[in-house]
C-alpha cells in the first residue's frame, strides 16, 4: 500500500508561516483552528552551539494510527484506496478521544461543526493531480508530497539526498509516523518532542 505523506526539509524552511495560511485558505479553517501549525523549537544549547528551528506540524499519517484505534464510531479511518488516515465528519460524534490519542496534538476541533478534523493531504487536489496547497506554494521549496514506497516520488527523492542522521520523525511510540523531517546535524540537534 502507498505511504503518502509530506516531508519537510527544515534545512530549507525559512519559518515564514506560508504553509499555515495556504492550508487555511485551501481548507477553510477558522481563526484559531489549525490543520497545519508552525511550532517554534528552541533555542537551546550554549553559544556557539545553539539550536533553533520551526516545525510545521500536521497529521503525521501514522502507519499504526492511534486515532483510528480509539475512535468509537469509525469516523477516524484509513481510506482503503489511498491508505490515508481521514475523518468522516458525518460519523464523528465529537467525543475527542482521537484528539487525546494523537501523540502530536495535530487534530483540530471544529467549533462550528462540533467535529474533529485534520490535514487531509489536500486529497481533493491530489486526486486531480495537483499538489497539496502547502506544498505547492511553499516559499522555500521545503515541502514535498508523495509515496514513501515509490522511489521516484518527490518525498523519496528528497530523503535520498540526505544521510540517515539528518532524517527524523516526531517521537515514535510505536505508531510509526510516515511524515519525515530533514534537519542536518550541522545546523543543530533534533528534538523529537515539540
Amino acid at each position: 500500500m502507498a505511504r503518502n505523506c509530506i516531508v519537510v526539509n527544515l534545512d530549507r524552511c525559512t519559518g515564514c508561516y506560508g504553509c499555515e495560511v495556504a492550508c487555511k485558505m485551501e481548507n477553510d479553517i477558522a481563526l484559531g483552528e489549525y490543520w497545519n501549525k508552525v511550532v517554534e523549537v528552541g533555542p537551546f544549547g550554549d553559544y556557539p552551539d545553539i539550536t533553533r528551528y520551526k516545525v510545521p506540524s500536521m497529521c503525521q499519517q501514522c502507519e499504526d494510527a492511534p486515532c483510528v484505534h480509539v475512535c468509537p464510531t469509525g469516523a477516524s479511518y484509513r481510506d482503503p484506496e489511498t491508505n490515508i488516515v481521514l475523518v468522516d465528519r458525518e460519523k464523528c460524534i465529537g467525543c475527542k478521544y482521537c484528539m487525546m490519542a494523537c501523540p502530536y496534538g495535530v487534530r483540530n476541533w471544529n467549533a462550528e461543526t462540533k467535529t474533529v478534523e485534520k490535514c487531509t493531504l489536500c486529497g481533493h487536489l491530489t486526486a486531480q493531480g495537483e499538489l497539496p496547497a502547502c506544498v505547492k506554494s511553499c516559499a522555500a521549496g521545503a515541502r514535498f508530497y508523495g509515496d514513501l514506497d515509490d522511489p521516484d516520488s518527490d518525498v523519496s527523492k528528497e530523503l535520498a539526498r540526505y544521510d540517515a542522521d539528518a532524517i527524523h520523525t516526531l517521537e515514535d511510540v510505536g505508531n510509526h509516523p510516515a511524515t519525515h523531517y530533514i534537519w542536518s546535524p550541522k545546523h543543530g540537534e533534533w528534538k523529537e518532542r515539540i
Partner: protein
Amino acid sequence: MATASQASATMSRRSFVKASALCGAVAASGIAATDCFVKADPARAAESNDVKIVKTSCRACIAACAVLAHVQNGRVIKIEGNPESPMSMGGVCAKGLAGIQALYNPNRLQYPLRRVGERGGNDWERISWDEAITDIATKINEISDKYGSEAITVSTGGGGNPHFSNVKWFGESINTPNVWEPGCAQCYLPRMAASQLVYGAGKPNNLSFADSNGWDYYFDDTPVTSLVLWGTDPSNSSVATGGRALAELRAREQGLKTVVIDPRMTLDASKADVWLPIRPGTDAALLLAWEHWIIENERYDAEFCKTWTNMPYLINPETRLTLKATEAGLEGTDKDYVVWDSKTNQPVVVDYPMNEGVDPALFGTYEVNGMQCSTGGELLKRSCEEWTVEKAAEVCWLDADQIVKALEIYTDPEGQSGIMQGVPIDQYPQSQQCALAALALEFLMGNVEKPGTMLQNFKGCPVKDQLGNTPRLLSKEKVMKRAGYIEHKGLMDWDMCFIPDVMTMMKDGDPYQIHMWFDRSGNKHAVLGNSLQLDEVTPNVDCIVHIYMYPTAFTRMYADYALPCTEWLETNLPIPQLNTVVVRQAVTHLFETVEEGIIWTNIVQKCAELGNEAAARAFDPEATFGHVLYKNEYEKQKQHMGTSGITWDELCEKGVMEWCSVDEYRTYEVYKKIDEKTGKPKGFGTPSKKLEIYAESNTILGRTGYPWAKCAEEEHFEVPPASADYEPLCYYVEPAESPVEGAEGYDPDFPLVITNGRLPMYHHGTLRNVPWLREIYPVPELWINPADAEKYGIEDGTWTWIESRRAKTRGLAKVTTAIPKGVLYQERFWNPEFLNSDDPKLAYTAMNYNVLSKTDAPYNPEYGTYTLRGFTVKVYPCPEGAPEGTWMKPEDFTPWLPTPSDPTEEVFDYGA
C-alpha cells in the same frame, strides 16, 4: 468614519468561503462533502469549474513574487505561487497568500472622504473624486501663491503597494523640493548611494540582497561557496525570493557556508556556520577589524587592487584627494593620477588602467614634490590600525575566535564569497561609514563581477518598474530650499529631503512654515522615528491629505482628506526579474479605489487646469528633458514598457516573459570589456574608472554636491560645502546613547540597547489588519536574554514596559537565548483595533517601538540618518498588561474577515 460602520457588518468566515470557489468547485464536482478529498473526478471538476486563473505578482513586500490569482465571478477566491518566476519559483509567503484578506478587508477606504469637524474626531463625508481632486488642487495653488510651493511637503513609505518614484515626480510637478520617506536615509539609500559613488556601476548594483541584488545567486550553477549575511535575514525579509535562493544554495551537493552577523538568532543565523550576535550600533567597529585582519594577514587580492582599485593612488595630504600629475610636478594633466613605482622608487603618472612594467605600491608614504603622500592603501591601513580582532570583540560584544572563524570563511582562498549587507547599518548615524567599509572589503577581496560574487553588472532590462523622476523641473532657487540640501548631500541621490528639518519646519516654521502635507503610506506612526512628534508637528499644517488602502492612525488623527488607493490585486506594473519580466496586473477593481500614480497625475493636471504654470510644465517634453508625466494608465504602461518591444497586453497574457536568454543576461567582468573609443577597458563608472577603496567621491560630494546636485538651469551645479568633510574611509563612533559604562552616552537609568528587525508576516507598518497574519503574531514580542530577564524581573510571556529617554511602550516578553545579554529586540507595531475606540492614540502608543526611537542629533553626515536602532532603554514589568481592547486571541480578529464584493469600473479613463 465611513469605514468604521462596515467593520461591524462583517460576514462570518463560513459565509465568505461559501462565496468562494473551494466549496463551489468541490460541491459541483460531485465530491461528497464528508470526505471531500478522495474521489474527485478530474474531468467533471474541470467541466464545472468556471474559475479563471490570472497571472500576476504580489506587492505585500518589495520582492514581487509571481502568483496565480484564482478568480470566480469577478472575485478573487484563491492565491497560489506561479512557478514561472525565476526568482520565487512558485513560492509565496504568508503575506502574499493573505492578499485576499487585505483586498477584501472590511476596513478598505472605498471612496474619497473629507473630514467633517475638528481633527482627532472621526466624522467624515463621502465626496466624489472630482470634488476631491478639485479641492486639493485648489489648495495646492492657493498655498503655492501665498507661501511658495516649497510650503507643501510630500511623503511616502515602503509598505503597502507604493510606487517610490511617484512622490518625487509629483513633488517636482507641483514645484516643491520637500519630498521624503522614512526609509531613504534610514533604508537602502546609504547602501545604494555608497555603491554608486565608489563602484559607479549604476543602480542598483550594491550589497543589498533584500532589494533584489545578488542576481548570480538565483542560478544554482553559481560557484559561490560562502556568504556573509551582515545584518540581513532573507528568511524574513524576502522569503520566497532571497530566502528561497539561499535555501537552494544550501541544498546543493557542495552546500553553502554562511556567516550571519545579527543580534537576533534568525532562522538564517540558526543555520549559519558562524553566528556573530553583534551589539547594535557597532558594525563599523567590526568592519574595521575585518579590514585590519585582511590587510595584516595579506588575504586581499593584491593584483586586483593594484589594477582595478585606487588603493595604490597617491593622496595629496593638503586636498585629501588623489594626487594629480600637475600637483606632483610631473608631466600630465590635472586629471591624471599618480602611483609610486616600487621597482624604480619614484612617482609615476598612471597610464590607465596601469602602466606596463610598473609595480604600484599599495602601501607606504612617499615624498613627492615636497609633500608626504601616502597611498590610498596606506591611509586605509592606518584607518583600521587600532582595530584588532580582540578590540572589535570587546566593543561589539563578540567572541574573538568566532570573528576569526568568520574571516577564514570569508577569505578562504579556495572559495568564492560575498557580503550581503542589510538594513541595520542604514538605521543609525554610521550608515555611510558601514556601507563604504563593506564595499571596501569586497574590493580588497576582488569580489567584483566574477561568477559567484555579490556585486554584478548584469544586463539591464529595457522594461522599467520605476519610471524615475524629473529632478530638473526644479529651479536652482527651489532646490536650494530643500530641507537639509547643503548639510546632507547624500540625499540628493534620491532627490529627497532631511526629515528632522521638515518636522521642525512643520512645527516651528523654521526656516519657513510647511502648510500642506501629502502622505501616501501605511502608518507613519509605526515607521517614523520618535513618532509621538507627529502629535506636535501636525497642528500647524493647514491641510493634510492621506492616500492609502485603509485608514491608519495617521488618517484618524490628522488627515483632512482620505483618498482610497488600490491594493496590489488591483494594480498594474511590469517587474524585471533577472532575464524575465513578471507582470502585476489588476485582477479586480473595488469601489472607487485608484492606483496612486493616477491620483497624482490627476491632481497635477487639475492644478495646471486651474492656472498653476509650474504644474503645466510637468507635461512639457522640453521642461522635463523628455520625461513627461503620464496622464493616464495607458500612457503609464507605455512608459514602463520602454524600448523592450514587449506590449503591455502581451505581458498580461503571458504573465512572465524572457527579454533575453540567461547567457546574454549573466555578463561577468563588464569593466574589462574594451571601450571602442579608447581601445582600453571600460573600467568602472567612477571618475577614475577604478573602484574607490579610498572613497574620495564621498569627500567631493560633501564639498560640492557632485555628482548629484542638479537643477533646471544646470546638469551639475556647485553647492556650498557641508559643515565638515565627508570622510573617505570608515571610522567608528560609539553610539550617542551607549550601554557601555564609562562611555560618554552611558546613562545607568537606561542600561540596555535595543534593535528592531523584520518578521515574515508583516512588511513595515502593513497588514496588522489581516486576520490570518495577526493570529500568527497578534502583538509584538520583546526578546530578552534570560540573564537580563532575571536581573530586571521579567517573566516569559508577560507584558513589559520598555522606556527610552523619549517615551515608554509595551512588549510581550519572550525570554530567549536568541538575543544576547544586554540587547533587546522588538519589531515595529501598531494596533488598528483602537482606531474607532474612545482612545485612538492607543493605536500607536500601546506597543509601538518607534515612539522610543531617536531623531535628534547626531546624524550621519552624508545622509542625515537618525537612530532607529542601537539606542538605550530600560525595562520593567507591566502588571497592568496590554490596554483593554487589544486584540490578541485569534477570534478577536473576526470583524476583519474579508467582505468580498463585486468588481467596479475604473474611476478614471484608461486613455486608449
